[in-house]
């Protein structure tokens, strides 16, 4: 549910951030582009101004009838007034100097075939003069005294450098001016001014390559922008500025380009900071919303959770578990009802345990009385008889046997009680159950005969070895056979069988007795549970414990009126007769 509430918000936030980031990037490019455009306009205007100055000087020479000295003064004064013109020379059509602003010989001539035309003015390609300033020769035709002359000016664009130096974008952004031929004219970054002297080929520049994406500005000038690494030059060491945001604006009249470069890190610092702040704000808002939701939700869900936990605890038998519900609403009432129910369950359990304990005690007491009364009574009777027949040697022998038998009976009963409380440790040796059962059955044939029963065996061929305690196994088998005798009316039959099934040895003790009702079959191996009228009901419980101690299982099938079969199952062992012997 929380995710359903948060995910749309997050998606909206991410979309907003993305949109804002792109918008901010566009703004940076646009702002830098504007700077480049303005710089281009200024430079264009600056060069145009110089051209206008030359035109103006030419106009003063044009058919004004100035004498030579006046022309010379005009040129020299102009050179002083406009320091960009380091030389102004008037030549005839053949290029021979007539007057010059220089105090020595003229040094400039009409530009050659590599010049370009700006209106009626011829302009040589810009070069770098001795003072490292971009310099070009401009020439304009002048008509004077019926002849065609040329006013030639060497213009040194010192102000161009200053203009470019003044352009700063942020702390690290700067401008460059490049000619159409890829010649760097000015570089605003102090460390990179040497590139002007080094004649860096700017045609490799990402914004000046022929493949660079171009846009057309309103005035038709080519513009380009992009983000690129500062190591674009294969000949110059890069400046460790990382990525650069670069834009270019053209100066169509001159064929030059103004580039404005700024490290991306700085250019996008604002948007990145804003994005970061917005991310943090969104995260905080989300966190606040989740926190508020969590606390409100908890106050509502907590009682339910506590009730759930309490119910689970009760189911696990932890009847002392209670829930704390402070509210006065329906949930509070439900919590109170739950606690009342738990209290009632505890009372009922205590009552049940008490009754069970009383019943067990009663059953044990009845069994003990029964089991002990017979031997005690027999011993008592025998004691009375010995007084009368003390001289009878035969009777004395009989007395001795009677007392010994009854004491043995009492001792066995006490051993059973002790075994229930604390099982006797068993030893484990390979034993042949066929042999063991044969011995047990032989010893019990007399009892069977006395009870009018037939005790028969059906033992599988060959020895059947299991690991176990021979004495304990004999006791279990004897107990089962004895139970069978007791449950079978005279004329009945008790059969002991052995068989192999997979890797197990099975022993069946079956009788044709009265059988056990189905509803009691599940509890006949519990302590103090018996179907007999006498006894503590410990025989089967002890047998089960012994069998399980020997690694086996005991099961029972019974049908009332038909008989009962107990089946013991033990893992076969590979023990050899030699081992058995040893």
């Amino acid at each position, binding site marked *: 549910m929380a995710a359903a509430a948060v995910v749309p918000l997050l998606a909206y936030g991410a979309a907003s951030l993305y949109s804002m980031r792109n918008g901010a990037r566009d703004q940076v490019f646009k702002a830098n582009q504007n700077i480049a455009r303005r710089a281009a306009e200024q430079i264009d205007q600056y060069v145009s101004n110089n051209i206008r100055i030359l035109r103006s000087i030419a106009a003063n020479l044009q058919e004004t009838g100035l*004498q*030579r*000295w*006046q022309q*010379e*003064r005009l040129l*020299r*004064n102009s*050179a*002083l007034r406009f*320091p960009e013109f380091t030389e102004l020379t008037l030549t005839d059509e053949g290029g021979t100097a007539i007057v010059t*602003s*220089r*105090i*020595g*010989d003229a040094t400039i001539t009409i530009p050659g075939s590599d010049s370009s035309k700006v209106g009626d003015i011829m302009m040589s390609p810009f070069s*770098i*003069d*001795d*003072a*490292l*300033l971009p310099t070009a020769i401009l020439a304009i035709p002048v008509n004077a005294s019926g002849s065609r002359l040329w006013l030639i000016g060497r213009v040194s664009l*010192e102000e161009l*450098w*200053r203009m470019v130096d003044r352009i700063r974008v942020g702390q690290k952004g700067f401008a460059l001016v490049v000619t159409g031929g890829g010649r760097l004219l000015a570089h605003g970054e*102090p*460390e990179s*001014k*040497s590139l002007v*002297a*080094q004649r860096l080929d700017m045609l490799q520049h990402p914004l000046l390559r022929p493949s660079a994406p171009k846009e057309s500005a309103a005035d038709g000038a080519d513009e380009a922008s992009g983000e690129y690494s500062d190591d674009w030059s294969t000949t110059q060491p890069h400046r460790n500025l990382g990525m650069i945001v670069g834009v270019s604006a053209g100066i169509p009249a001159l064929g030059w380009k103004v580039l404005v470069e700024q490290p991306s890190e700085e250019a996008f610092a604002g948007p990145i900071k804003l994005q970061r702040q917005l991310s943090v704000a969104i995260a905080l808002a989300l966190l606040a919303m989740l926190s508020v939701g969590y606390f409100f939700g908890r106050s509502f869900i907590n009682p339910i959770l506590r009730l759930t936990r309490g119910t689970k605890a009760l189911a696990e038998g932890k009847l002392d578990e209670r829930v704390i519900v402070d509210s006065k609403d329906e949930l509070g009432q439900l919590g109170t009802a739950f606690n009342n129910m738990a209290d009632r369950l505890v009372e009922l359990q205590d009552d049940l345990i008490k009754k069970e304990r009383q019943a067990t005690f009663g059953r044990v007491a009845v069994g003990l009385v029964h089991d002990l009364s017979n031997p005690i009574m027999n011993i008592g009777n025998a004691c009375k008889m010995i007084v009368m027949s003390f001289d009878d040697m035969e009777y004395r022998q009989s007395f001795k046997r009677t007392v010994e038998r009854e004491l043995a009976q009492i001792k066995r009963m006490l051993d059973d009680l002790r075994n229930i409380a604390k099982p006797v440790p068993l030893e484990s040796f390979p034993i042949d159950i066929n042999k063991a059962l044969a011995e047990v059955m032989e010893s019990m044939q007399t009892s069977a005969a006395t009870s009018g029963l037939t005790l028969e065996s059906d033992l599988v061929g060959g020895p059947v070895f299991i690991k176990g305690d021979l004495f304990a196994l004999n006791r279990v088998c004897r107990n089962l056979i004895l139970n069978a005798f007791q449950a079978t009316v005279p004329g009945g039959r008790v059969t002991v069988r052995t068989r192999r099934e997979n890797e197990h040895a099975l022993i069946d003790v079956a009788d044709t007795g009265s059988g056990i009702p189905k509803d009691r079959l599940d509890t006949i191996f519990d302590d103090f549970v018996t179907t007999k009228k006498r006894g503590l009901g410990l025989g089967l419980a002890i047998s089960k414990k012994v069998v399980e101690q020997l690694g086996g299982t005991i099961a029972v099938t019974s049908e009332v009126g038909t008989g009962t079969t107990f089946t013991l199952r033990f893992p076969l062992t590979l023990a050899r007769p030699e081992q058995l012997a040893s």
Partner: protein
Amino acid sequence: MYGRGVQRRSRFRCRTFPRGWCGILPFLAFTFACSTATPAPSTPRKLTILFPEGTGDSANNGLAQIVSLLSQEGLTIIAPDGRVQPRLAESLKWSDDGLELSVTLRPNILMHDRKKLDASRAADILRRIIEDPNSRRMYPGLADVDAVKAEGERIIRFVVRRHAAWLPDDLSAPLSVPDPDNPKGIKFGAGPYQIVSNEGNTRVLQRFVQYYGGEPSIERVDLQSVETLRIAWASLLRGEVDMVTDLPPDTVELIRNPNVYIKSFSRNYQYLIAFNGRSRKFTDPRIRRALNMAIDRETIVTRVLKSSGLPATGPIWPKHWAYDPSAGSYKFDPGGASVLLEKSGLQVHASADESLPPARLRLTCLVPARFSIIEQIALEVQRQLLEVGVDIHFDVQPYDVYNDRLTRGDFETVMIDLVGGPSLSRASIMWRSPKRSDALPIFSYNNPVTEALFESLRISSNEANTRVDVRKLQQAFLESPPAIFLAWNDRARAVRSDFSVPGELGTDPLTTLWRWKTDKPDRPGDRMANR
């Protein structure tokens, strides 16, 4: 340019004399360098210096000046305020009668020939300098010396015929002896660097490890002149060289960047247009005063020198301790100048040659070619003088021709970058009587007032009198100027910021070159060269 250099020849020739006394400048600045001993060098390496021609001096003069600056020293050095400080000397002491100067040498000074510079050797060298007429003209204080005596190992005694106030100044003459095994004029000095090669436009100097001030850090200095500033700058910006010596003022700000720092310092040189005293055009001092009044010096300093200089209105170095700024100066007054010229009988009239403007006075000025600053100053002066009806025409000549004509006095006026300090003796040389043999009066300026004042200053024995005489001298030059004084100029040097350059602000960084340090490794080529 003209007026600086260190070459002196046994036979006096005008074309060479200015170089010698102009070599004082390096020694001046060395005062600061010598003030403390240097610790052991860190990373010995080669330093390459480029001297761009056409920025202030000829290639030979420029190189010679720097070589002299680095390799030779005098007994004294003159501080920028004109005060004398000991250099190779430890102390100087006048006798009570003022006729004997005792100079005690520093102990354990070795010259580049590894021989000790003791009193006897120093006295020998000084006697040769004094006997040289050319030297006597460049160091007029030495002309008063009758005898030089060595006493013991370290004391040199100068016996003078009268009190010679300028003698301590002129003991700044660099002491050197010719290398007998080297036919190319290489000399042994006692400076921190020893010249080892003098070929074409290149000079190679090796550090002198036994320099008394301490072993220089930089092991070798390669000095080379190049044709243009652009070549020099491009080399510096590419990191191929470590220093460019002379920068025009208009390029300083443009080139400044974090890898190169610019060191500007005041020079005791001024641009002026000297009159030839033999020309009758300048006989009337009113004309000379008018010409000075017609000049807007502030415009020259601001526009042409880009504020790297000071207006000049006389030959006395304005930072000299005795200079009196209240003594007066020329104010820019073109109206007054025109009136004064009118009063001098100079009327504006048209020329028969229509290529010339109407003028009341036409002058020809000798100018060296290929000096852009001088050309710009010339244009400005020409414009300003024409405003008062003076048409000055510039006779531009290659440097050798210019120098030759200058020394022969073959000019009407001449534009020159001339030394004017820092001592009074330096200021006097050019403006003494043409008949004197202990001066270089190439401009033939003859003024009994200034001549008397110079003589008075030459024998002055107290500062108060000196101050009074200097004030009078300033005023006398204002009354009868020998030249159109224009501007004292600054000089700038560019050094790669790899180097740590000690020294006070405003002093020539070359004077402390022996104390420069760098932690940057040599360039591969340098390391090879150092092997």
